[in-house]
């Protein structure tokens, strides 16, 4: 019996083992890393040493508050431009010249969430002059000068919160927009959150940009129903003069939006005839509302930023703009609102939608003229969905977010949930190709892909999840971008590379449109910084209005002066250092031991000022932090700090 039993048990075990083995064998292999590339992909992204990339890609840093400039196709990081984030690496936000850039009505803020890069345009085509980028958290827009790759202007946006649908441009960059993602009580007030429907409003700001100086100012704000205005794009060609904003949360939820703002089958795209609104405003319509917000401008002549306080803003209620604004129903929680190169089609990406709606501008105008409406919201007519629709892209992937165009009749939509890029024909709405993204793609960028003239050669997928793409770096990983060749019928993955922060969007442009305007040095003769010195002979130390001012000249490889005495504990000391070089790529740096401040880097011909309040007596070395020459290590000096009331005369010696 025991024998039989053990034989039986043995048989059962054998069968089980066999089952397990066969199961193991059948377990489907999962290909997560994509096809191994075997063709000529490597040569397509290989840029020979010393050669230039074909395109600049400006990739937003998201929560890093910066923008990164990459060379494409190589994917080489060229420069990180600080915008909303302080940058101790070069002193941005720490030097006296740049501190005002980060001023807001809440005081100085060392950070923001920079989402959408937008190149300035001329005739609907990127012109390489400026790059705009929004600050999402404390609503702001910034302008970067692409001749110097420096942030030269930051404008705060009042009555706004979560400045997300920003800073999209008109075809001639006479306006950029700032649409609020969080609705708020206008002139922010203390109200119960549950009074959302009555007290909260959206605000869409139209910011005028001066053609020559680039200076920005809020021209007017449209006060709208309290939806979440997510993304936007201006019309072009036939639709020039219109702006399209996607909006979700038409449910007007104020808690658990994940569920409560996902109830309706349709949210909206808001179409605004902003030219008409601007004319209306120009006729004196709208009201000036008291407000207070910061306008920070970096003057390239004095190399100094100043904050101007703006005390009022022109607002107008959407209900007063009869015939200028229309809601177009849009399948579920749209993200992108993208206009094709011809300006005829408006594509919205409904995050939770099963189709991508493609609206026809011509049909929209007919629907307006034919009064094909379905009621109104707070005085804004709602057009009939079908009346505006050119067609729907069927089976576009799950979670379609954002669409760009190649200028050859095709659109490319990122699908977050199904983690892929979907290529479809704009006229026929047929999906013609799809390619996986690794993993969970957010935005995508084709050079000029949202303009009248895309350079449809590459597509960059910017992904939200990185996982196993690169060597692991602990729990916190870099973000990942993939470069896709779109020059042929089939999309082809070329390479992937890590990116800074969390890219939310990028813009790209042929390199020569940027390189031709590059500044190499600041001309010393044109340096109007009030603290500049033009030769080492002017180096000196002075006590003025209770502070010590040190005028330093830096030239390879010494400071003039380099021995300072007579400073006392607790005094405020300003080091005004001028880099007297006039040669390309010879920056000097400056740092002082124990300074509770950053260092600063000074470019040839530039003057920067670093503050120091010594808290103890002693000898403090200062030195050049940027390896400037063979004798860089000798570029140093000493500062003597004496106790308060000490009788050491204020002197500056050394150097030449």
């Amino acid at each position: 019996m025991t024998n039989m039993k053990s034989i039986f048990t043995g048989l059962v075990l054998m069968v089980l083992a066999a089952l397990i083995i066969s199961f193991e064998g059948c377990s489907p292999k999962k290909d997560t890393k994509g096809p191994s590339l075997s063709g000529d992909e490597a040569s397509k992204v290989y840029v020979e040493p010393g050669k230039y990339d074909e395109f600049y890609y400006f990739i937003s840093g998201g929560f890093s508050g910066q923008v990164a400039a990459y060379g494409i196709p190589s994917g080489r990081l060229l420069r990180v431009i600080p915008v909303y984030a302080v940058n101790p690496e070069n002193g941005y936000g720490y030097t006296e010249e740049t501190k005002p850039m980060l001023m807001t009505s809440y005081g100085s803020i060392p950070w923001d969430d920079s989402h959408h890069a937008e190149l300035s345009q001329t005739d609907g085509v990127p012109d390489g002059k400026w790059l705009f980028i929004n600050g999402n958290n404390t609503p702001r827009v910034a302008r970067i000068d692409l001749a110097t790759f420096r942030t030269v202007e930051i404008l705060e946006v009042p009555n706004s919160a979560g400045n997300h649908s920003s800073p999209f441009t008109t075809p001639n960059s006479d306006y950029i927009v700032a649409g609020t993602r969080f609705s708020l009580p206008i002139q922010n007030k203390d109200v119960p959150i549950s009074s959302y429907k009555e007290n909260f409003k959206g605000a869409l700001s139209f910011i005028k940009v001066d053609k020559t100086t680039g200076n920005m100012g809020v021209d007017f704000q449209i006060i709208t129903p309290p939806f979440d205005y997510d993304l936007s794009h201006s019309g072009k060609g036939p639709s020039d003069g219109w702006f399209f904003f996607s909006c979700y949360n038409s449910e007007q939820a104020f808690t658990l939006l994940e569920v409560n703002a996902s109830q309706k089958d349709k949210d909206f795209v808001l179409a605004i005839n902003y030219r008409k609104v601007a004319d209306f405003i120009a006729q004196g319509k709208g009201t000036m509302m008291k407000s207070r917000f910061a306008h920070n401008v970096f003057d390239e002549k004095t190399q100094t930023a100043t904050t101007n306080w703006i005390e009022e803003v022109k607002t107008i209620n959407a209900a007063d703009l009869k015939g200028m604004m229309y809601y177009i129903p849009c399948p579920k929680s749209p993200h992108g609102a993208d206009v094709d190169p011809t300006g005829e089609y408006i594509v919205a990406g409904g995050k939770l939608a099963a189709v991508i709606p493609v609206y026809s501008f011509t049909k929209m105008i007919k629907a307006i003229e034919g009064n094909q409406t379905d009621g109104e919201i707070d005085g804004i007519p709602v057009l009939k969905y079908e009346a505006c629709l050119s067609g729907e892209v069927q089976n576009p992937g799950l979670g379609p977010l954002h669409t760009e165009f190649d200028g050859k009749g095709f659109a490319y939509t990122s699908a977050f949930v199904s983690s892929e890029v979907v290529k479809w024909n704009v006229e026929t709405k047929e999906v013609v190709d799809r390619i996986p993204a690794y993993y969970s793609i957010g935005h995508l960028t084709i050079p000029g892909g949202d303009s009248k003239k895309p350079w449809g050669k590459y597509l960059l997928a910017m992904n939200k999840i990185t996982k196993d793409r690169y060597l692991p770096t602990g729990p916190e990983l870099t973000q990942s971008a993939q470069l896709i060749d779109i020059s042929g019928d089939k999309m082809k993955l070329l390479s992937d590379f890590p990116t800074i922060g969390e890219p939310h969007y990028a813009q790209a442009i042929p390199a020569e449109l940027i390189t031709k305007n590059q500044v190499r040095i600041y001309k010393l003769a044109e340096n109007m910084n009030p603290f500049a010195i033009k030769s080492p002979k002017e180096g000196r130390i002075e006590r003025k209005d209770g502070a010590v001012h040190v005028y330093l000249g830096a030239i390879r490889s010494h400071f003039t002066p380099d021995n300072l005495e007579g400073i006392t504990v607790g005094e405020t000391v300003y080091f005004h250092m001028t880099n007297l070089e006039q040669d390309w790529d010879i920056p000097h740096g400056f740092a002082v031991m124990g300074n509770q401040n950053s260092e600063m880097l000074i470019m040839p011909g530039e003057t920067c000022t670093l503050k120091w309040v010594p808290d103890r007596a002693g000898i403090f070395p200062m030195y050049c932090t940027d390896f400037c020459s063979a004798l860089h290590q000798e570029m140093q000096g000493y500062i003597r700090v004496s106790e308060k009331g000490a009788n050491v005369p204020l002197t500056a010696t050394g150097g030449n």
Partner: protein
Amino acid sequence: MILFFAALLLAGMYFTPIWEILLDAPQYPERLGMKIHIDGISGDLNTINGLNHYIGMKVIEPDSIFELKIMPYILGFLILFGLVTAVTGKRMLLYLWFALLVIAGIAGGIDFYLWEYDYGHNIDPNAIIKVPGMNYQPPLIGSKQLLNFTAHSLPDIGAYFAFIAGALALYVIIREWKSSTKKV
């Protein structure tokens, strides 16, 4: 007619650089250079002066170079002389003019050499970089390695104007000489 043209060619030297010094080094892929004009020096003078301070070379200050002040007048005289020669057609004047051109050229070369010698040898004893036995005199014409720099010294457009003017004068002399010997 040819002499008239030759004299006018010399006038081109007012508008074009005469000589050029080029400096190549690994960290200057864009190449540094300075051009010597009849009345001054242009180019990357500040950068070159900045680099020269390492080896203790004097600062090159065009304002302190006396020759650059008088050369425009010497050139004016030569042009005028040439024009007078062309108009009068006197053979003696032609010989004299050609001789003056040659002398001016040689004198200019010697002067340039002396300046180069002075800059290259008259080095600050407290120079940052001292290489025993090294002098930094650039070549009169041609190329020479000076530490990490290769210095090239070359005639520029103005010099070619002068060469052509001289050659034309010589051509006329030879032609005249041949035709006169035939007559004999």
